[in-house]
């Protein structure tokens, strides 16, 4: 029996999520990936799942990484920026960001961090 593709796996996970709790599905998926030695694909698989959820249900999973907690107003602004029926924002803390935030979904990335801007400045300085 041939190994299922990443897309097939994503579809299976989505089907399982409709019937079973997310925690159980996550455990089952983790066990499968370890058993099949496909743990390296986990990021791409999650991205595929997010993309399918967005395509099928209009639900957009967004990860916002920042050094400080985001206010409700900022979250609303982020939602307004994205065209989706429902936007779920997952917050992450990273002091290296310094200021601003890095917003990422399955198909786009918006880096509004101070760290990125300074890195760009440094890169331009090195390039001159």
């Amino acid at each position, binding site marked *: 029996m041939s190994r299922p593709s990443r897309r097939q796996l994503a579809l299976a996970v989505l089907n399982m999520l409709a019937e079973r709790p997310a925690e159980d599905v996550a455990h089952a998926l983790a066990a499968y990936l370890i058993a099949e030695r496909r743990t390296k694909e986990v990021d791409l698989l999650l991205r595929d799942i997010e993309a399918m959820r967005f395509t099928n249900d209009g639900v957009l999973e967004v990860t916002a990484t920042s050094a400080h907690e985001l206010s409700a107003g900022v979250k609303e602004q982020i939602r307004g920026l994205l065209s989706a029926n429902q936007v779920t924002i997952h917050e992450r803390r990273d002091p290296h960001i*310094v200021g601003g*935030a890095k917003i990422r979904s399955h198909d786009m990335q918006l880096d509004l961090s101070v760290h990125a801007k300074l890195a760009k400045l440094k890169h331009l300085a090195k390039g001159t």
Partner: protein
Amino acid sequence: MVTVLQLFAATEEAQGIQALGIDPLAILAQAVTFLVLFWIIKKFALNKIVRTLEDRRKTIDNGVRLGLEMEAEKSRLDDRVADALKKARGEADTIIAQAHHEAGVIMKDAEAAAERKTEALIADAHAKIHEDIKRARTELEKEVLSLIAEATEVVIGEKLDVNKNNELLTKALAEAKR
């Protein structure tokens, strides 16, 4: 003694030319003998001797003539050698003068080439120095800019709190929406 004197006295005394002790017959006989002897010598030896002497004379004359000719030839050869030497010396002088001239031209050309090369090297060195200065200045600017960026990162990290971060993000998102 008396006997000898008597004997002289008994001898007949000679007359005329015979008194001088000259005998014409003897002289005639001697002349004939001489002529016969001369004829014999001339017949059998004198011609050969004269011929031999003549040959020797000719040989000597030829030798002298050849010697004179050789001397004249030697003189001419000396003149020719002297002319050739003079000509060769003249040509050598011309060649040496030409060589001196060419050497001078070559030296001048070499000096000019060396001067041009030196000037080019100096110009290259100047250009390289300018380039190095420019590069060093650029590197310094980069370093300064990098330090400013790092310092800015530290200062912002210390100064930025939750509220200020949200204000910053609100502005940034508004700009992104535009």
